[in-house]
Structure formats: structure tokens, C-alpha cells
């Protein structure tokens, strides 16, 4: 190793001395020293020390010429790429050296040179790159890797000179057709076309014929994992099945790839199959089963990949009325050491999977999470319980409500806050069902502090004042810190005090609303709040003046202050068009965010289902039949008929052969017996444990 550290900032002159000080006679040691000096240059480029490193160009060029060592070449190219793209004026000096490497007989050096050519955005470099690529693609005896590099380079060059690349499209198409000797090259060509089409929304979507698609997928088994993934990714939407048979055959061919260990391959197979299912009218249940099982198996991957899979599960669950997945809820139970992002996503999956059958199981889980150490997790779980109450039927709502009441006793501050906010939604959905519990809820008036829960409490008290004899005292309590409350709470207190007055026009409520109005008008600085208070004041004055043209106003006033709220609905569904697009983007970045591509990547193409005579107009019409399958797979039907029941631990129980009984007394564990106390006889035993020679 060198005496100096490589990864520190150096001045150009220091490295220069390093490079010059090399003893030519000691060949071996000088080579390592030289390499270390050169490495310092790359390290300094990583550190952002461009100015100094630029001065070393002459040294780099001299080494470029004389050195044959691969590592030195790599350093030279890395130097050229990094500085060439920042300082265009040095590119002319570099070009001849790059071209010289390009002519080399060594394939790896050629690849390196080609990468450098493509990397530097200068016209002369780009032209040379085009020249080389054209000659390369036409030469059939070029190595696989070089040809693929050349094809992929076009994706890059497309940014610099789109027209010139489109001129080459014919050649690329020919490559797909003709290079059947090497499917990997065919895939590279296809991917190049796909990637370029993705970037240019003004181009027509990429299309390939059903025949050439069959040619390609027939050879899936010859491709390596990345090629498989790239192929399936490009084929989605590029091939348009013309008959049902086309789709079924394609599904049959690609289905075994669900068994691949690489998530990239599995999810893209998934995407392709889901896409093809738009071009059939029925699907065998076996396929649904296989898709579901392969998704479940992916949950055994690294956390980041699990996260991606879970996000896609959400997408798939949302995308059809009757989802194509048949998943057991227990896979989405949160584990104690799951990263937080997985916990969140699992929670969302649980929410989506909930129905009458699974509710009790899910609620039991959510109860656990509600008492989780992580505050956000706990809040989300409570929120989920509340949402389930609104989403499902009335019986389910009762279960959820009771669970929430139970959790309320848990008494931790943030849990109470969250539960109160959630109650409001449930009460809005079922205004009459839970009246008996209102008293219980109102007990927590003192605990609410956060704006949302406070608002919720104010709303509940006002709405159910009929059942609260002491509503005035309760309301006074909520009102007590009016001036310190945030604006939204102030609004809510104002509205509710008027509402109470309208409901029960007693002297107390008059006093109350009058106080609030006065405070708002006289002391509040916010013009909106003041204006609203003034509006209410005038309305009441008008209504009270029985004479005059406003006598009928009393009813309208009720309407304005205390009208019926619209029925609460949870907006968990996405726009069907967005869902259709997302289903074509399974496993991509947009599937993580569950947003349309155009919202995240302005320049990317929005995918849509291409027209075909067999395109299913309404995807919910797809029937799942459990009859004899058209496909070869033979998933067993036995498992399906098994009755669903939660097993208990005792089902697995066996009598023990040996039962150890407790003897002796409990001992304190931390105060471990000191070693000194050990009996001398024990000590002897330890010493004599040594083996005899």
C-alpha cells in the first residue's frame, strides 16, 4: 500500500510529483505506485476537486499512450468521461486516444471506448459513435457484448441526436427479425426501441407483430434473467393479441417464469399476464392461484423488494372489482421488526383485504398495532379501524366501534386523540346507531388537544347535545381556551355555538353563542373569522326581527347553520383510467407511488391498452372459471376445498415424553452468583477437567 491515503484532497502538483518520482528500474513497485497516484485522481474527481485535476490532463494523456494495463486504461477513460462532460474544451485533445482504443483488437477496450464516446456530449464524439455503431450492427461476427453495447448506446445517443437515431430504426428492426442466432441481441434491439419510444410521446407506440412476439417468447428459456425481464417489459403493450387464442398461448408460454427467483422477471411476467388478460374473456382459476402464490413467495425477499411487491398488491387489489389475487390476510400481518415503510404498506393491504369473513381476524391484528410503540403506526392502525367501520356493513361497524371504545381505555394521549377523530366519521355514517355510547366518548373532553380531534369532539357534542344534559358545561370546557386555539378550531367553535343556539334557543345557549360571537368580532385578528362571526350575527338579528320581509328566514337559517351533511364516503378508489395505466406499469417507480406516470415523469409516455378485436371493454366482465383449465398447469383443487378455519396451537400438540418439573426457588437473575462463592470442590473439578495426555 502507498504511504499516503488515497481518498483525500490533493493538489495537482502533489500528484504530479508522485507520478514523476517513479523509479523506472524497479518495474513492479513503480507500477503499483503509479496506479495509486492515478487512483488519487479519480478519488479527487469523486470529491469534486475538478479544477486541480484538470491540470493533470497532459500526464493522463501520456499514460494513455504508453500503458497497456487495463486498470490504467479504465482510469484514463473515467477521467475523460468525468472531465470531458464538464469541460468541453479538452474533448478535442482526448478524441484521438479514444478512437485509437476503439480500433483496438481487444473487445473490452472497444466497449470502454464506445462508452466514453457516447458519454461525452460533443458533436465530434457523437458522430464517431454513430459511425462505429452502424458498422458494428451490420457486422454479424462481432461479439455479443459489443453488439449489445452498441445497441444500448443508441438509447443514450437519442438524447443528443434523435433524428439520426430514427434513421437507424430499420436496421434495429432488421436485427430483431434476423438475429435469431442470438436471442440476447434480439432482446437488446427490442429494448432499445422500447426505451426510445418511451421517451418520445410524439412517436407512435411501439408495435411488433404477434408472430415475432411468439418467436421471441419461445426462446425465453435461453435468455438470462435480465434479458427475460427486459423482453417481458418491452412486450407489454407492444404486442397486441388479435384473437383469444393468441393471448392464451402467450400466457401459457410465459407463465413458468413466475417461478424465477429474480423479482424483476416475476413482476414483469406478472405485468405481461395481467396485460394479456385484457384480451380474453375468461380465465382459469388456476392462473389466479398461481399469480397469487408467486406474489406471496416474493414477500420473502429483501425489505425494499417486499415493499415494492406490497405496493403492487395494493394496485392489483384496487384495479378490479373482483381482484385477480386470492391472498390470505395473514401474510400482511405486521412483524415486529419490519421496517416502518413495510408496516405502513401492510396496513393498507389489510384494509383493502377486509371483508365480512376476515374482519374479526384483521381487527384483532389492528388492536395489536394500535398499542404499538411507534406513534405513527398506532395512529394509522386506529385510522384503519375507523375506515373499516365506514367501508363495510353495519355489523362490521359495530365490531369496529366496540374495539375503538375498548382502546379508548388504553388511555395514552395520542391514541385518544386519534380515536376521537375517527369516531366522528363513524357517527356520520351511522348517526343513530351508537347514541348510547356518546356519554362514554364525551368523558374524554379534557384529553382532546390536537385540532382535528378537538374539532371532532366539538362536532360530536353539538350533534348529540340531545343526549347530553350537561352539554353546556362540556361545550364551555372546549371553549375555554378559545383565544389560544388554532384557527380551524375557532371556526368550529363559532359554528357549533350558533348551531346549539338554533337547536335549543334557551337563555344559556344564547349567552354562549353571544359570548363566542362577541369574542370573534371584538378580539380576533383574523378577518375571515371575524367576517363569518359578523355574518352569523346579522343572520340572527334578521331572524329575530319578526316583522319585516325576513320572517321566513328562520328555516333558511337552520338550513345554513345546521343542514344535513352529505353521506360520508371513503375515497379509496382511483380513477379507472389511472388504474388501467398503472396496471401496465407494474413494478415501475409509478407503481410505488400509485400515481399516473404523467404526474411524476412529465416526458414519459402514458401507456394505454391498444385496440384489438378481442379487447375486453369492461375488465370486470372477465370471468374466473374453475372448470378444466385451458392451460397446462395443474394446480391442485384439493387445497381449495379445505374448510377455512384458524388452527390453534393445540391442533399441533403432542404428548411430551419427558416433563421437567420445577424445583427449587426463584432466583434473582441479574445478581449473578459471584465466582468466589463457588465451592472449592467445584473449583477442583474445573481444574481437573483437562484431558489426560
Amino acid at each position, binding site marked *: 500500500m502507498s504511504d499516503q491515503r488515497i481518498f483525500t484532497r490533493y493538489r495537482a502538483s502533489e500528484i504530479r510529483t508522485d507520478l514523476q518520482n517513479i523509479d523506472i528500474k524497479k518495474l513492479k513497485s513503480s507500477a503499483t505506485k503509479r496506479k495509486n497516484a492515478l487512483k488519487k485522481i479519480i478519488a479527487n474527481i469523486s*470529491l469534486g476537486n475538478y479544477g486541480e485535476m484538470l491540470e493533470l490532463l497532459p500526464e493522463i494523456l501520456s499514460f494513455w499512450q504508453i500503458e497497456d494495463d487495463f486498470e490504467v486504461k479504465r482510469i484514463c477513460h473515467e477521467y475523460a468521461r468525468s472531465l470531458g462532460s464538464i469541460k468541453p474544451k479538452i474533448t478535442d485533445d482526448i478524441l484521438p486516444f479514444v478512437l485509437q482504443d476503439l480500433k483496438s483488437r481487444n473487445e473490452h477496450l472497444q466497449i470502454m471506448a464506445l462508452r466514453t464516446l457516447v458519454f461525452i456530449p460533443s458533436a465530434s464524439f457523437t458522430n464517431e459513435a454513430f459511425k462505429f455503431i452502424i458498422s458494428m450492427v451490420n457486422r454479424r461476427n462481432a461479439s455479443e457484448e459489443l453488439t*449489445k453495447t452498441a445497441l444500448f*448506446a443508441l438509447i443514450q445517443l437519442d438524447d443528443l441526436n434523435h433524428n439520426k437515431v430514427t434513421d437507424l430504426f430499420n436496421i434495429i428492426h432488421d436485427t430483431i427479425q434476423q438475429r435469431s442466432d442470438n436471442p440476447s441481441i434480439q432482446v437488446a434491439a427490442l429494448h432499445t426501441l422500447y426505451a426510445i419510444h418511451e421517451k418520445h410521446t410524439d412517436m407512435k407506440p411501439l408495435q411488433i407483430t404477434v408472430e415475432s412476439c411468439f418467436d421471441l417468447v419461445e426462446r425465453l428459456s435461453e435468455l438470462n434473467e435480465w434479458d427475460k425481464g427486459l423482453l417481458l417489459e418491452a412486450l407489454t403493450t407492444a404486442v397486441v393479441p388479435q384473437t383469444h387464442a393468441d393471448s392464451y398461448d402467450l400466457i401459457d408460454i410465459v407463465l413458468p417464469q413466475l417461478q424465477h427467483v429474480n423479482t424483476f422477471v416475476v413482476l414483469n411476467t406478472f405485468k405481461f399476464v395481467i396485460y394479456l388478460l385484457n384480451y380474453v374473456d375468461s380465465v382459469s382459476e388456476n392462473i389466479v392461484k398461481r399469480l397469487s402464490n*408467486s406474489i406471496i413467495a416474493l414477500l420473502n425477499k429483501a425489505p425494499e423488494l417486499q415493499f415494492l411487491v406490497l405496493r403492487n398488491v395494493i394496485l392489483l387489489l384496487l384495479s378490479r372489482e373482483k381482484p385477480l389475487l386470492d391472498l390470505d390476510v395473514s401474510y400482511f400481518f405486521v*412483524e415486529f421488526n419490519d421496517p416502518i*415503510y413495510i408496516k405502513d404498506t401492510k396496513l393498507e393491504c389489510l384494509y383493502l383485504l377486509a371483508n365480512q369473513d376476515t374482519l374479526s381476524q384483521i381487527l384483532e391484528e389492528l388492536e395489536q398495532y394500535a398499542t404499538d410503540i411507534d406513534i405513527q403506526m398506532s395512529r394509522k392502525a386506529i385510522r384503519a379501524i375507523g375506515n373499516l367501520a365506514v367501508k363495510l356493513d353495519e355489523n362490521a361497524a359495530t365490531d369496529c366501534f366496540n374495539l375503538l371504545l375498548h382502546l379508548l381505555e388504553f388511555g395514552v394521549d395520542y391514541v385518544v386523540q386519534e380515536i376521537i377523530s375517527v369516531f366522528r366519521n363513524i357517527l356520520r355514517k351511522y348517526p343513530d346507531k351508537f347514541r348510547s355510547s356518546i356519554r362514554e366518548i364525551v368523558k374524554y373532553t379534557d384529553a382532546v388537544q390536537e385540532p382535528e380531534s378537538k374539532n371532532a369532539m366539538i362536532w360530536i357534542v353539538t350533534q348529540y347535545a340531545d343526549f347530553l344534559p350537561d352539554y353546556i358545561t362540556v361545550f364551555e370546557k372546549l371553549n375555554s381556551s378559545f383565544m389560544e386555539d388554532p384557527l380551524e378550531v375557532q371556526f368550529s367553535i363559532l359554528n357549533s355555538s350558533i348551531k346549539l343556539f338554533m337547536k335549543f334557543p334557551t337563555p344559556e345557549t344564547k349567552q354562549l353563542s353571544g359570548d363566542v360571537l362577541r369574542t370573534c368580532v371584538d378580539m380576533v385578528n383574523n378577518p375571515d373569522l371575524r367576517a363569518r362571526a359578523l355574518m352569523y350575527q346579522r343572520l340572527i338579528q334578521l331572524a329575530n326581527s319578526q316583522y319585516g320581509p325576513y320572517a321566513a328566514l328562520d328555516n333558511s337559517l337552520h338550513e345554513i347553520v345546521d343542514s344535513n351533511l352529505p353521506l360520508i364516503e371513503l375515497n379509496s378508489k382511483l380513477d379507472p383510467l389511472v388504474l388501467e395505466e398503472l396496471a401496465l406499469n407494474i413494478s415501475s417507480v409509478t407503481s410505488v407511488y400509485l400515481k399516473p406516470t404523467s404526474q411524476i415523469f412529465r416526458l414519459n409516455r402514458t401507456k394505454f391498452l391498444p385496440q384489438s378485436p378481442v379487447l375486453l371493454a369492461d375488465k370486470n366482465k372477465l370471468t374466473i372459471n374453475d372448470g378444466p383449465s385451458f392451460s397446462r398447469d395443474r394446480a391442485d383443487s384439493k387445497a381449495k376445498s379445505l374448510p377455512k378455519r384458524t388452527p390453534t396451537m393445540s391442533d399441533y400438540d403432542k404428548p411430551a415424553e419427558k416433563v421437567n418439573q420445577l424445583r427449587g426457588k426463584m432466583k434473582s437473575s*441479574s445478581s449473578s452468583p459471584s465466582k468466589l462463592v463457588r465451592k472449592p470442590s467445584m473449583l477442583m473439578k474445573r481444574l481437573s477437567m483437562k484431558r489426560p495426555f
Partner: protein
Amino acid sequence: MINALLIFTARGELVVSKLFKGSMKRSIADIFRIQVINNLDVRSPILTLGSTTFHHIKSTRGDNLWIVAVSRNNVDSAAIWEFLYKLDSLLDSYGLNHEEYLKEEFMIVHELLDVMMCGSGGIPMLTENSLVISRMSVKPSKSILEAQNSGNGSSNTNSNNNNNNVPDLLMSGPKLLRRNSASLSQDLSILTDFKWRPKGIVHKKNEVILHVNERINILVSKDGSVLKAYVDGSIDLETHLSGTPICQFGLNDSLSVSGVDSDMYGSHNHNHHFGDVNFDKTDKKQLSMASVGSVILEDCKFHQCVSLDKFDKDRIIKFVPPDGSMELMKYHVRDNLNLPFKVSPIVTNTRNGTALEYRITMKSLFPGRLSAKNVALHIPVPPNTMDCKINVTNGSCKFIPEESAMIWRFNKFNGLTENTLSAVTIPTKDNTQLSLQQWSKPPMSLDFEILMFSNSGLVVRYFTITERDQKYKAVKWIKYISRSGSYEIRY
């Protein structure tokens, strides 16, 4: 696909920045550092700013490096994360996941990336560990490999199921593989020349070890009902075989058991040599006792050398293995499991309500002839506990204040045995802590390892190796290891 690849140290020093696109600015690294590394509140492994997306992972072993991929359009996240993990495992095999070494030898990472990615677009092409290493000018040094292998052994026992997809790398074969990664064509017997397997590999002793590793995941609720139970398994292969052998094996999965190859089982069984472990028919019975001898494989995933079409058609696993070690398949089972332990906890408040009383029985349900190693039950206690009074029938149990838990350990736990623990917590005097009702009661969790036991009941029914040479002989070993994944019990 990937426009830039960055590697940071745990503290956020940029060590490798490899750009694949000229329009990418080097300052992109600063953005990541500010937005993710210096931001303590990040809750996601992916970040999109404008149209730039960062996918990141933290290296699983070594110095917790940040490995980051930057991309500009709607790329396939699965591809990127898979790639990052493959890169991580290669960094590991070169010892480059250690900060100091990485700072010296960062050019190896540049070379690795040149080999692994194709072209200037940053498209992953070649990620199989042995193949990548064979094409590198620098090979990982032996000492690193050995250190890492031993490290693997120990880390495997206590790691949870999160990192078990990182393939264990055991490059112990005498020769590294050359050439590239084309996969098998459908009909193996026709092809004589396998590009990725050099001709004329010769080993003195032909040997194959098949490891059946299983992790059981289970969650038991308060009332003893099993909320979830499944087994994630993998079959790892260690091969030292001469020539070009074609391997084939069958499992007792429900779809193939009823099928054709029952006679194969009989005819091939006699030439098995199971080494130290006496793996005869009686043992097979014991392994498969869960069900009527067949297992429903919910799903399985295979290494790319396995012919997927063949499996799909005939449920036969047929392949020409690369020399060295690899993960051949992963599978997932949920029905008819063999649960190895039954833990029944009773946790009650003491009379004055300030402390907890535990009474836990732990019973092993596997056959009496077997025994489990490294059994540890992690029993959480409330945070305000000062000490615990413990009495156990066997094993040793200690209170670990740092973890707020008691740990009950057994070096060896025999089959069909029941042990009991009883304990009382001693709380601190100060009452400012949360009350017992508010304690969230994290589940108890159990760790263990059992040799020659299969949680799922999966058994390798036959395993044959054929080569053109008729006299070809190979020693075949099959080892079963069942471990705990997340084995949690609520109370």
C-alpha cells in the same frame, strides 16, 4: 436504466460515483446526502425529486454503506433493487463493504460495474457472482472469502428472514467459471457444450451437497390460535463435480407424488450415499410425518440454470449446475406444517398490580431422537423492571436490562420434552413510568435450529446425477436444517 450509481459510507462520504449518462451532474450525490442520509425522518427506500429517482439500500454486512441508484425516468424498481442487492453481495465477496478497504480499492467497484452492466445505459446484464468474478481481472482474496464464510455461518443463525435472500457466497471450488451467462436450452441432453461451464473440470472426488434450509414463521395469538404459519425454504447446492453432469431431483410435493416417477424413486435410491447422517428410509418417514407424505408447495422459484418448462410440465427439477455454490430454489409452504415447539405463556398481574408473573411452558413437538440447538426464548418485560426472579426446569434464563427482556436459553433441547419457567418481575419504585395496562406487550419470540428436521415435511425423494461417462460416481449428501424465522407468541 440506471443513470448513476453512488456508494456512500455510513456517515455520508461519497466514495464511488459512477455516472452512466453525460447529462448527469456529479452534484446529484449532494442532493441524496442532504435529502436522505442527513435526514433522520426518512421512512422510505425510494425518493423521487422532480423526475429524478433514488433507490437505495444499506449493505447488509460490513460497514453499512449506502448503495444508491439514480435514474431519470419510469424505470423498473424491481430490476434496480435486485441489482443493488447483487452488487452488495459482490462487494461483500471482495470485502469492499468495509469503508477503509473500499477507499483504497474503489477502482474494483468501477470494474465490477463495467462487467455487470451492459453498455452506457446502465442496464444490468451479468450478476451471477461466480460469473462476474471469473471475468474480473482481480479475484477476491482467499482470506476474505474464508473470513466471510465463517461469518456467514454465524450470521445465519441469528439473522432474521430479512436478509436470507442474500445468496451465501462460497467460492470454494478450485476453478472459477469462465465465459458468459447464457441459460440452458430446453433439452439438456442435446447440448454438449455449456458456455458457462468450462469443459474438463476435474475433481478428485465428485461431491454434491444439497442443503434444505427452512425458516418457519409463525404468529400465535393470546388464545393459542395460530394467526399465521408458513415456511420459507431454500435448497442450496454445493457442487464439486467433474465433467458436465446433469442433475435431477424430485420432491414430495403434492403435484408430483401422485405422478409418474414413483418407480424412479425405487430404482435410483440404491446408489445414494448419505454420509455422516444416516439418512435411510426410516428417517425419511420421520421427516415427512406432517402429512401423508406430500407437501403442497404454494410456490417455488428457481435459479436460472433450472429448466422452468421442464418443471412446469413434469414437476422434475433438472439442471446442469455451475461449479461451486449457489441457491438452487426457494419455496413456500403453508399447509400441514410440523411445528417444532409449543410455547404456552400465562402472564398475570401480581396481587398489588405493580409486577408481572410469568409461567411459561415450552414443549418440543419434534421426535425424541432429534434435538434443537441454540434455543432462545426472548420474553419481554415491562420497561420499568429492575430485576426478575426466575426459576426454570432446564436451560438458563437471564434478565437483560438493556433489552427489557428475559432470555431463556438452551444449548440443546431434546425432542418431545416439556420445560417450564416461572418468574416474577421486580419493578422500580418510581411510578412515573407507564402503567402496566399501557405497556404494549411486544410478542415473545423464539429462536432455534434443528438439524435433519423439516418444518414443512418436504423431502428430497430422489437425486440423480448422470454424465456421459457410464462409470460416473458422485457422493451425494442431503442436509436438512430448520430454523426459526419470526416465531412470535402473544400473551
